[in-house]
């Protein structure tokens, strides 16, 4: 049984996911869909989702695209700059496992090759609804996580 303090914190965490978007070598397809998801039409603020520019403010890191060897260090650095507890969503087929770029000479592979990933959203590119669904699922999932990273 978790203490009341932890329960309140878990409730607040699920109701207020602030996201930061990072392009680790994407073709821009997923980026455009991410930006589309933040438009008034989809109204992600209903779920408390707000995009923040600084990694220090954000809770959820959204990675798009296969991780190229050059971008790997930057991705890890952005990840390390975020405050705990933090979550990572790999958005699109490339971020999930390398996609069509998986055997390229300059490509490391999916986002999980560089940083721990909590949730994969497939699609090439995934629709904004898929992204919103993914983030909401991630948050309803972390309620049960005993010791969030």
């Amino acid at each position, binding site marked *: 049984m978790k203490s009341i303090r932890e329960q309140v914190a878990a409730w607040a965490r699920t109701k207020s996911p602030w996201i930061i978007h990072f392009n680790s070598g994407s073709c821009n397809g997923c980026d455009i869909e991410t930006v589309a998801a933040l438009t008034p039409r989809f109204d992600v*603020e209903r779920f408390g989702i707000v995009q923040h520019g600084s990694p*220090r403010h954000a809770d959820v890191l959204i990675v798009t695209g296969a991780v190229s060897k050059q971008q790997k260090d930057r991705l890890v650095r952005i990840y390390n700059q975020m405050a705990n507890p933090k979550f990572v969503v790999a958005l699109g087929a490339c971020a999930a496992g390398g996609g069509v770029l998986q055997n390229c000479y300059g490509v490391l592979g999916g986002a999980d090759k560089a940083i721990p990933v909590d949730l994969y959203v497939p699609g090439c590119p995934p629709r904004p609804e898929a992204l919103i669904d993914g983030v909401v699922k991630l948050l309803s999932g972390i309620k049960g996580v005993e010791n969030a990273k």
Partner: protein
Amino acid sequence: MEMIKELLIQLFEILIYPGLLFLFVAALLADWIDRKLYARMQNRQGPPWYQPLADFVKLISKETIIPKHAVGKHLFRVLPYLAISAVVVCIFFIPISGSLALMSFQGDLIAAAYLLSIPTMCFFLIGWTSSSPYSAVGAMRVLTQFFAYEVPMILVLIGPAIVAGSWRIEDIAYYYSANPSMMFVNILGFIVALITMQGKLERVPFDIPHAETEIVGGVFTEYSGKLYGFIKLAISIEMIVVAALFNAVFMGGSLGLEGFLGFLLFCFKVLIIILISAIIRSAMARVRIEQMINFCWRVLVPIAMLQLIISIIARAFHG
């Protein structure tokens, strides 16, 4: 016995009403109302009512990172609390539900204006101690913007003081309650005050210090967790305090009503000010820093001067 009772009353006033707890609840509500209005103006649903509370609790429960390169680590920790305490102290000079403020002395209008500029100075220092390029640029913009909006703001706050013939916020509110028609003398000043309020609270179109598309998080780039939560709370509380100050100075305070009715009137007028602010926020885009300074010095300052002259003439005829 009397002393203990007095002490308890003072503690109640400082901690609960109109002190910390009232301001905390009012700030979260104001934040939600502002975001909801903004969302409705964009034809979307908007956040649920508990959204600012969830944001605040989440930030409080998050890890707080003090960057390795921060210049003054103690300063880095203390500044958000300094900003919040300055705005909370400011509410004690402003009458809320009745015609009396908690503390009052001749010239407290100036004291309130200075207390309201302390958060801005804190934000400048916040950017400076963070020692990150984005916060440094943000800090410079905070200060540049401060010199642009502060002058017309103080100038228009002087207008009602001249008409009422007193530098006490209480007396000004009392004067306008007794002579409501004199409020129209200051209508020009009130418009200028509402525009400069957007600069003071760093909201669109004057959100240049933390322009997310240009300089990441601006001055607050390096802040995380608890400290960032308190910064956000300080800004929300500042919105309430500025609205309360405008209510007392330009809109006649409680208009003679006392107690619960006075409190309802206060809430209503603060809501109107938040509504106007949200309309400005949703109708405008961000301007560049030099456009903002040009606008403030070439348009707002002359209007504020004109308002001063009108106030002096009105005082000569009426007073």
